[in-house]
């Protein structure tokens, strides 16, 4: 019986981490459903980007209020989590505040004191976040894609953080021994006074409950990540590392098209020659993307990284002028469809069975795709280097090259370019007429 808490703790830990690991595997599998793309270049630049944008929150402060509050929560999250180390050791070994035994009291007090300060700051920041979202109702949190789950998800995360911080402070406040040492209890000493007068046994009960709920809460939160936009706390790092390094205006040239064009331009190629061994397999199944498997794994990683903050959408010229396009929705739709495909694969023993659905039309409408001005405002706005424009472009490529389904005016424009080398119906021979006008 003596070891019961230790055993329970170990079981909770194994279950919590095990289930999370299982979902991470699923996540990786889903991302790998995407097409291969080579991002092995410029390692040092990539590391710098990751350090600046993800670790250093470089793009968050572009919006100062949200940026500073987010940095508080971010630092709080990282630093307070050091405490988990102690909790895990205590839980497994059966010690109580092992830190007090191995660290000088002054250092331990300093650490816990810092955690307490941060816990209070995080609580305040998260409360402000909640107010911005639910009372002030900032526009970007109330767009049409932010209903039901996305809206609730955002609030659940905030409640989770409030509860975890509260439990941490209560756990410290009701720890009679810790309060007696009177070091590091910067905030919990005031909370302790709320509990004064309670018998020690009851205090101990509250302390144990808070301790257990705190660590169990953390494990639940860890497992919540996979189902939530909160996944960004992990994926922001690889996402900023692998993000595009080229100038934003540079859109990729499709290699498959280059091969075809080179062949068309080469007078020595025999158009009727049987394809050489193996070349047929090199041709992509289709040009552009109509479903998630046609996108690159980087675009799929983008989708899982999106935290639905809506900075992209609020900067989008199409969205600002009432069009249906929302870059955030492009990312959310991509993730939702990818999840659906993943579940389909799980249900069909590792193989995808056509479900009569695809990303195009069933999730993202053509009206959204054609509203994009390719201005890159969404790419610039994203604090974790997501590129919604690349998905829009790949889907336009599918519409045009596989379905010839461009809007009529664009077809006219393209016909003009084909026939006379300009988007308007002017003769190429008149190109220098301006000189004499």
């Amino acid at each position, binding site marked *: 019986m003596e070891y019961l808490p230790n055993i329970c703790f170990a079981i909770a830990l194994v279950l919590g981490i095990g289930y999370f690991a299982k979902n991470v595997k699923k996540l990786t599998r889903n991302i790998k459903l995407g097409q291969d793309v080579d991002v092995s270049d410029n390692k040092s630049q990539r590391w710098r980007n990751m350090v600046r944008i993800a670790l250093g929150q470089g793009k968050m402060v572009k919006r100062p209020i949200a940026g500073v509050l987010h940095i508080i929560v971010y630092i709080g999250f990282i630093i307070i989590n050091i405490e988990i180390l102690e909790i895990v050791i205590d839980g497994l070994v059966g010690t109580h505040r092992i830190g007090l035994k191995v660290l000088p009291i002054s250092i331990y007090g300093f650490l816990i004191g810092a955690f307490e300060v941060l816990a209070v700051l995080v609580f305040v920041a998260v409360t402000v976040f909640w107010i911005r979202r639910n009372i002030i109702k900032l526009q970007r949190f109330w767009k049409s894609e932010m209903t039901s789950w996305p809206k609730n998800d955002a609030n659940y995360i905030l409640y989770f953080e409030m509860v975890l911080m509260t439990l941490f402070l209560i756990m410290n406040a009701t720890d009679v021994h810790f309060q007696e040492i009177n070091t590091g209890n910067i905030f919990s000493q005031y909370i302790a006074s709320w509990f004064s007068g309670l018998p020690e046994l009851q205090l101990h009960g509250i302390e144990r409950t808070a301790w257990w709920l705190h660590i169990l809460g953390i494990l639940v939160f860890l497992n919540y990540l996979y189902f939530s936009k909160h996944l960004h706390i992990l994926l922001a790092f690889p996402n900023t590392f692998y993000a595009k390094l*080229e*100038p*934003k*205006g*540079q*859109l990729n*040239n*499709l290699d498959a*098209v*280059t091969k*075809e*064009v080179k062949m068309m*331009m080469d007078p020595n190629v025999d158009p009727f020659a049987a394809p050489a061994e193996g070349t047929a397999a090199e041709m992509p199944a289709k*040009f552009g993307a109509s479903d998630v498997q046609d996108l690159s794994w980087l675009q799929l990683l983008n989708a899982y990284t999106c935290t639905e903050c809506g900075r992209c959408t609020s*900067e989008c*010229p*199409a969205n*600002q*002028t*009432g*069009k*249906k396009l929302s870059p955030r929705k492009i990312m959310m739709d991509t993730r939702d469809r990818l999840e659906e495909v993943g579940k389909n694969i799980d249900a069909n023993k590792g193989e995808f069975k056509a479900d009569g659905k695809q990303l195009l039309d069933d999730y993202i409408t053509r*009206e959204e795709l*054609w*509203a994009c*001005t*390719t*201005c*890159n*405002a969404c790419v*610039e706005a994203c604090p974790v280097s997501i590129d919604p424009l690349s998905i829009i*472009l790949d*889907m*336009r*490529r*599918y*519409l*045009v*090259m596989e379905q010839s389904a*461009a809007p009529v*005016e*664009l077809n*006219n*424009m*393209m016909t003009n*370019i*084909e026939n006379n*080398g300009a*988007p*308007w119906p*002017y003769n*190429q*021979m*008149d*190109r*220098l*007429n*301006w*000189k004499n*006008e």
Partner: protein
Amino acid sequence: MSETIKVPTMAEYMAQGKQPEVLFWVGCAGSFDDRAKKITKAFVKLLNQAKVDFAVLGTEESCTGDPAKRSGNEFLFQMQAVTNIEVLNAYEVKKIVTACPHCFNTIKNEYPELGGNYEVMHHTQFLKSLLEEGRLTIEGGQFKGKRITFHDPCYLGRANNVFEAPRDLIQKLEAELVEMKKCRQNGLCCGAGGAQMFKEPEKGNKDVNVERTEQALDAKPEIIAAGCPFCNTMMTDGIKAKEKEEDVAVMDIAELIANAKEL
């Protein structure tokens, strides 16, 4: 006015066995659009005045393929690109200047992979370099003290991080450069990019160019300076929609400098 401008072609240079210092890529708008042709001419006048040894491709120039690519027609884009690159490489072109940020972006960023490697400059960068080399002088003239705001073209600014060259030139006019709330990296698109220029916008509650024009008008400018023929059209239309033609002019930076010099 045509008597004063000299516009040699690459073919003419080739015939003389010479190579110009720079190729001026005029672009489709600059060649065919009535408004943009004025920008082209203003820029040529400046090139002539600075005695720049330049040439154009003339009838050998063709669309870079930018609107096709951004519409999703990668085939057409690459066909255009490969054809243009063949012409450019045949003339052994090393340096290109263009007054169109879309041509600028495409040739600079998307042509190299397809075999076209050139030093590409936007005309504002080129004019600035002429200024620095002492080949061109800029005076304020009629624009002295005028309130001018600069609308960043997406494909020059955000897409390629060119923000200062156009602004430096405006300041050389001794004008008062006023910034819109949304400028530089955060500049709002005029609504023409991504081939939107060639189609009706999707259903919404406003046109993008009107939104952007309103932002520009908030800065209370006398002139909205542009660096892109498409932005120029969109902002001009926006000014018309707001019935401000009498008070606010939309002009390209090359036009501002040429007008200030009364060229």
